[in-house]
């Protein structure tokens, strides 16, 4: 084979074959081991969970529809009341959405600063980058429920503890997503502004934000979606809103299942609604920028 055979001084085919076969065997071994470990973890994990659960998986499986059936049959019987009940609980829904909206707003602003201060090339105090990163790591790691419960103790019940708790977690989570975007910003524009004598704030506002805004908004919307759920969940532990009403009506059981159903419809509808709207809007925001 003239002209293209470049394998003159290279290792012989035999040694390549041997080396490759060794690699194949190693890969099969590791692959097999990984699979084995995973299967063992899954199976044994399932057994531990099954064992530590009150009811077993197989015994419970056929009853899975009992509870929804109870709720649905009662709700169906009293279906005429549902619209009125939904109106009754609408203010609670508004509160839940408000909690999500404010905490997303505050969290996004916090996340914005944390990410700018924690990104190489943009940070105002480059030495403090690790500090701001750790801060956002910790804020992200704390589950909302932890802060909410502590704040309920200090501030009393109501929407504010939930709002603060979700905002803190949101700031941490968004800071991470935002930094991934801002790490890829084009620093040329920032340098251009620096050369005119712009302050840090002006550089961020005019040089960075216009570049990252679409991605930031898209992530914020995604977070809003998540926060609606979070805000409903925190209601379960006393932070007000729809979650609180849902927990009570479910606790009462039969007799109030129509209320549970009404609240559930409100909550489900809201989640699906915002989910659809935001995912449509997010697609629009990010599709324009082919990379």
């Amino acid at each position, binding site marked *: 084979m003239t002209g293209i055979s470049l394998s003159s001084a290279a290792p012989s085919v035999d040694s390549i074959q041997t080396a490759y076969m060794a690699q194949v065997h190693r890969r099969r071994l590791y692959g097999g081991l990984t699979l084995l470990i995973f299967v063992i973890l899954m199976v044994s994990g399932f057994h531990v969970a099954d064992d530590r659960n009150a009811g077993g998986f197989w015994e419970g499986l056929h009853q899975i529809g009992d509870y929804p059936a109870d709720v649905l049959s009662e709700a169906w019987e009293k279906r005429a009341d549902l619209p009125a009940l939904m109106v009754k609980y609408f203010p609670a829904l508004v509160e839940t959405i408000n909690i999500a909206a404010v905490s997303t707003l505050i969290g996004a602003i916090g996340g914005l600063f944390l990410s700018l201060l924690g990104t190489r090339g943009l940070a105002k105090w480059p030495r403090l980058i690790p500090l701001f990163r750790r801060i956002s790591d910790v804020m992200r790691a704390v589950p909302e429920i932890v802060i909410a419960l502590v704040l309920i103790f200090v501030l009393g019940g109501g929407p504010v503890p939930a709002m603060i708790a979700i905002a803190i977690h949101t700031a941490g989570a968004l800071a991470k997503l935002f930094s991934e975007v801002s790490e890829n910003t084009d620093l040329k524009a920032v340098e251009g502004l620096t050369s005119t004598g712009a302050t840090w704030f002006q550089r961020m506002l005019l040089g960075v934000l216009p570049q990252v805004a679409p991605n930031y908004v898209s992530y914020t919307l995604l977070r809003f979606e998540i926060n609606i759920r979070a805000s409903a969940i925190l209601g379960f532990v006393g932070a007000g809103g729809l979650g609180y009403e849902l927990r009570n009506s479910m606790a009462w059981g039969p007799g*109030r299942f129509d209320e549970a159903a009404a609240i559930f419809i409100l909550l489900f509808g809201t989640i699906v609604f915002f989910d659809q709207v935001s995912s449509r809007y997010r697609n629009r925001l990010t599709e324009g920028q082919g990379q």
Partner: protein
Amino acid sequence: QEINEFRIGILGGENAQDRMNSYQCLADYTTEALGVETKLFAPADYNGVIQGLLGGTIDMAWLGASAYAATYLQDPSVVEPVLIKVNVDGSVGYHSIGFARVDSGVTSLDDMEGKVFGFGDPNSTSGYLIPSIEIPQYKDGITMESGAYFGEVRFTGGHEQTIVAVSNGDIDAGVTWADGQGNWEDGYNSGALRKAVDAGLVDMNDMVQIWKSNVIPEGPVVLRTALPDDVKATMTALVDGLHERDADCAYGVAAGDTLGFQPVTHEMYESIVAARQAVIGN
């Protein structure tokens, strides 16, 4: 018919792990008596235990009267009451206590017009069911609808939360349970107030009693009906004899000093069942 494990559900009132610890001795005796593994479960609220009993995933629990009624109303055949706790003075009841902060100026339900009133768990007898029936009887015009007589009626989630909410001023008054024996300044002999005082959470000098219910029957120890008869018999005897066998263990299980347990039947709770049906509907 065989069972291969025995599952005991524990109602709220204490730290989940403290509850588990208090019941561990009972679990050990059960394992010994039945020869099967015994597991303890402490769900976050009353409803967790009720669902467990209904779904057949919990075999025994010591319920509140209203929680028993809730279970009974959803499925009368699923559990049967077997025992009831006897107080030191031989009585088998306790009270729902309405209370407020001294500095709030509230001294009776008359002062509560337009103010915020707090219940505990919706499935609690003293924290919701009985007060929601008896308080409106206090005088004409009181209802438990938010915005009617009271400015707002709220559920705090449990007895502890009610006490904290009152002492924080989140709510103007609330209801919780106490045996009604002993002194107010100690938080009575037993009950949620006493526990809060013991924990240094509240100073009873800052609190004032504004209402007290009639005697409420203690909740029953229930067993799942579907359990084999010999298991039911063994467990009834075990709990019944617990006080004689191991007073410390009985103290933990019954959350305080008692004279032990005595047999009880469904009839004892018929009025509570009726009350619950009236309030919550079925």
